[in-house]
């Protein structure tokens, strides 16, 4: 479904990604982890073209990102993305947040979109909050609306960029539960997170990054029971407390 081939990226002189390669199959839940500044967020933002890269290629659903013939907007509409800071549009209600892209990009009718939005809100457990503005919702609720917003485009893959790291501890689980349900329903997911509990429950693989390189790419249980690199060991010992 997604092929990442030898991707290099620089900010000016600073190399932030080097020789990154990985492939993600349909239905897989891939957890990307690593210390901060290791290039995890940058890598997944390359997958939907929000960040440019100088070398290599990324292919999504057999379409190369870096190609003049690819319509990047069409490609993005098939790839859902959830952000660390939710990025709900503050001037729109939950329903309006969810229906904006389906109406403008997929040209669906308002009634159809609103109906679908209500279903999605129900799915993330927020049926009663459709008419509220983001500022009236808690962080956990906002992030669940953001997930519903991405799902409204019927994406073939969902990208999560540290979806719980801006949340208060008591709200993390309500978001993770939604993500676990989504994983169990068969959604292809790429998740940048430090929540190793999530990885252990539903993750199929773990990609461990450090200093812009993919250091390990392992089946989930293997990574936790027997990490190869010293860096991954050090990282795990810091992050898994129990």
């Amino acid at each position, binding site marked *: 479904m997604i092929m990442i081939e030898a991707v290099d990226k620089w900010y000016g002189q600073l190399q932030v990604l080097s020789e990154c390669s990985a492939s993600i199959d349909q239905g897989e839940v891939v957890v990307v982890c690593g210390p901060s500044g290791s290039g995890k967020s940058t890598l997944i933002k390359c997958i939907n073209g929000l960040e440019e890269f100088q070398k290599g290629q990324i292919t999504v659903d057999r379409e190369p990102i870096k190609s003049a013939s690819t319509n990047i907007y069409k490609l993005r509409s098939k790839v859902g*993305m959830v*952000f660390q800071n939710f990025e709900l549009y503050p001037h729109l209600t939950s329903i309006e947040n969810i229906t*904006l892209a389906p109406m403008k990009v997929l040209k669906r009718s308002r009634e159809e979109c609103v109906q679908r939005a209500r279903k999605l809100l129900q799915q993330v457990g927020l049926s009663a909050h459709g008419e509220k503005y983001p500022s009236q919702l808690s962080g956990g609720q906002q992030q669940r609306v953001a997930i519903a917003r*991405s799902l409204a485009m019927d994406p073939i893959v969902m990208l999560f960029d540290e979806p719980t790291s801006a949340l208060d501890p008591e709200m993390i689980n309500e978001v993770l539960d939604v993500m676990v349900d989504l994983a169990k329903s068969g959604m292809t997911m790429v998740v940048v997170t430090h929540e190793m509990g999530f990885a252990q429950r539903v993750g199929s693989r773990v990609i461990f990054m450090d200093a812009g390189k993919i250091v390990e790419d392992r089946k989930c249980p293997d990574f936790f029971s027997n990490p190869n690199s010293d860096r991954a060991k050090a990282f795990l010992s810091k992050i898994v407390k129990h």
Partner: protein
Amino acid sequence: MSSFDWTVITRNVPWLWAGMQLTLLLTALAVVGGITVGVLVAICRLSSWKPLSLLAKIYVDLFRSIPLVLAVFWFYFMVPIITGQPVGPFYSIVIAFTFFEGAYFSEIVRAGIQGVRRGQLSAALATGLTHFQAILHVVLPQAVRSMYPLLVTRSIIIFQDTSLAFVVGLTDFLTSANIIANREGRPIEIYCFVALVYFVVCYAAELGLDRTTKRVTR
């Protein structure tokens, strides 16, 4: 001129009101035209294509370095030459204000757009919206909310600045009043009244702005 005769105002209400109507029309056209030009120039200014943003910057800097009176003279002189026919002071003034205020509005709009968090644009793009749609539906509506106080303040300034139409003899509120003052020989009463009217309108608008800002910028 030993005593005041305030009936000079009541006697000339129709003239003054006609002048005020022209002032209000001029203000409305200048605000609408200025904001339209301002949004376009701001988008050019923020364009990643260097020549376009440089051109927009030169436009803004040029208009902001000259006084409005000079801009009014420029357009009053240039518009008939460019269009090849006399257009009268009204259209010249409207065009002058549109381009002049466009430069000031563009700076307000630019700051407003830059004030919207970068992540909002990313989020909109990530759902498949085009750049234009993302700006139109996500960035601009938020920018407008934060710009609201500045836009209104600028509109109040424009209301005051339309009085400079005096220099080309367009019969706005001030010019009408001036004609009456000369005809009746009562400059004191007339000019005091003019100042009072401007003050009341602008101050009321200022109070209105204070009361609505919280609601709009929520």
